């Protein structure tokens, strides 16, 4: 029955409704595949008993012709989402053994829609990384390989486990989060679709915080329609998140079916960056041609502050992280290092509990927020952020409906590249995605082609605030034109 897992989420949903198969069949296949693919290290915790229970409940509903929009569909949950009674660690040693007594709003909504939880997915520690290598549980592995080379590659990050699990057909979709590119970059390097919705579209309540003004959750799935279907269930106003926006959630899946004819697609010249492989520029040109052929009008736009987005991000994100991570002090949850006095306990617990990249960001963040430096760093970075947002505002005001860019500056790279790269070299992975977080806009990554070595590459579409519909619609057009059907070779099943 492994073939069931090759279905897309929307195909599986339709099959369940037509009673072509049961949730038990889907879930059993998923649970078995997850256990067989442990080499990928995609899961940090498997929850087969919960999955079986949820599947049985879904089958009971489906038998009566009832059930929610995702009834009976096995999903994976990034370990950043608090799940009641189920260990949630943010892939950090400091949260080892933490079992929340509450459920995040997003996962609660997914369970209400009938989805089935298969377990918790690997990620970079506290979502800080672009390769899943900062995880306390070790790196997740990309199921894709370079040609016939068996060398293991990273699945991107921080939602690396989410991407690896969906790319290997272990589940039909996964939750993910995106602070600087952590949904779109892993989706792109694993041949998947990932959408970061507008800041405020999805509740952040119960999602372990990294940088609160940038964090936003979204799905990673096999197709644009799948992302649309899953995003709809994840979205919506939540009084428990003061930055959640009280707006109706549109039928995103329906939006995907509309033609792009007459849409104006902007192409920003500042995204042509020295050192980016020619293959990526060529794919971008191809994407422009596809959208033109589908009836869209292509216009050049200028986003002059693009190059400042990444350095400004590396002030804003660590500053907010240093504040958010202050709560991990060995008192209320997780790890506690033995010590004689309270300050020593804090200092030792935190030093033992978080890895090197997280420590670096806590220190940078503490430094830029410390007395005398706040204005020079944090306020200046927030001003630069306003300039980046204004660039987008002006482009959209001039009549552009969506903006097309590459999703990542490279295909998946080798495991252990992080060990030899400088922090800044790793940060550059987010160069095309981070502007979108800084401006709070929606962005989608769609698989569009393969490198000469056979690795997937994605294109990104960026839209107006709260116009995920146009982003999905244009994303669907790229998906259709690209006809991306390649599958990874690195899963022995």
């Amino acid at each position, binding site marked *: 029955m492994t073939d069931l897992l090759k279905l897309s989420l929307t195909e599986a949903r339709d099959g369940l409704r037509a009673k072509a198969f049961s949730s038990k069949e889907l879930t059993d296949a998923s649970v078995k595949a997850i256990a067989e693919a442990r080499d990928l290290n995609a899961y940090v915790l498997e929850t087969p008993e919960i999955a079986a229970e949820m599947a049985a409940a879904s089958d009971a509903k489906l038998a009566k012709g009832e059930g929610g929009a995702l009834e009976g569909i096995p999903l994976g949950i990034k370990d950043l989402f608090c799940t009641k009674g189920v260990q949630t660690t943010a892939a950090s040693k400091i949260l080892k053994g933490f079992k929340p007594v509450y459920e995040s709003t997003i996962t609660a909504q997914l369970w209400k829609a009938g989805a089935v939880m298969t377990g918790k997915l690997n990620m970079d520690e506290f979502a800080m990384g672009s390769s899943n290598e900062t995880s306390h549980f070790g790196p997740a592995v990309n199921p894709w390989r370079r040609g016939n080379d068996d060398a293991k590659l990273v699945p991107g990050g921080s939602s690396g486990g989410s991407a690896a699990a969906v790319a290997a057909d272990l589940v039909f979709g996964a939750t993910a989060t995106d602070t600087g590119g952590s949904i779109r970059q892993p989706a792109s390097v694993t041949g998947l679709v990932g959408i970061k919705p507008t800041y405020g579209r999805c509740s952040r309540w119960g999602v372990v915080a990294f940088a609160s003004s940038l964090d936003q959750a979204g799905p990673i799935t096999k197709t644009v329609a799948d992302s649309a279907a899953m995003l709809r269930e994840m979205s919506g106003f939540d009084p428990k998140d003061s930055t959640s926006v009280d707006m109706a959630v549109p039928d995103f899946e329906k939006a995907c079916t509309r033609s792009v004819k007459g849409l104006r697609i902007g192409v920003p010249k500042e995204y042509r960056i020295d050192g980016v492989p020619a293959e990526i520029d060529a794919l971008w040109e191809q994407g422009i041609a596809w959208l033109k052929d589908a009836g869209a009008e292509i216009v050049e736009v200028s986003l002059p502050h693009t190059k*400042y987005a990444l350095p400004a991000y590396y002030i804003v994100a660590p500053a907010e992280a240093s504040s958010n991570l202050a709560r991990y002090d060995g*008192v209320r949850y997780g790890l506690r290092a033995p010590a004689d*006095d309270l300050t020593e306990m804090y200092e030792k617990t935190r030093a033992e509990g978080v890895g090197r990249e997280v420590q*670096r960001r806590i220190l940078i963040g503490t*430094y830029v927020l410390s007395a005398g430096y706040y204005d020079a760093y944090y306020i200046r970075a927030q*001003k630069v952020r*306003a300039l980046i947002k204004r660039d987008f505002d002006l482009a959209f005001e001039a009549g552009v409906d969506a903006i097309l860019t590459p999703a990542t500056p490279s295909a998946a790279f080798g495991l252990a590249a992080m060990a030899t790269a400088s922090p800044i070299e790793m940060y550059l992975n987010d160069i095309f995605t981070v502007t979108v977080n800084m401006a709070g806009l929606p962005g989608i990554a769609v698989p569009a082609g393969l490198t000469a070595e056979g690795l997937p590459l994605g294109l990104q579409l960026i839209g107006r605030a709260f116009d995920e519909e146009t982003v999905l619609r244009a994303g669907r057009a790229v998906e259709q034109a690209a006809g991306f059907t390649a599958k990874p070779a690195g899963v022995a099943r």
Partner: protein
Amino acid sequence: MSVDEKTVRRVARLARLAIPEERLAPMAGELNAILAWVEQLQELDTSSVEPMTSVRPMRLPRRQDVVTDGGYPADIVANAPRTEDNFFVVPKVVE
């Protein structure tokens, strides 16, 4: 602006993060590389720009100042490394 070992020690103390002596110099180097890179933001004239505070103009929602939640201390301390009678237990603070 660049940081030396003394600054790293001070910032680590503020962050309540123990950094071993031998890590202070390498950490100063790592932080300086990042700080030198973000220095390019100085190229921009931001004197007439308001710092961004939210994606779309919105007021923080308000609610009645009343208790809306609580009454489950056992849940609150459920994950604590050490507790006593639903209190968090920490090393002695006051002699």
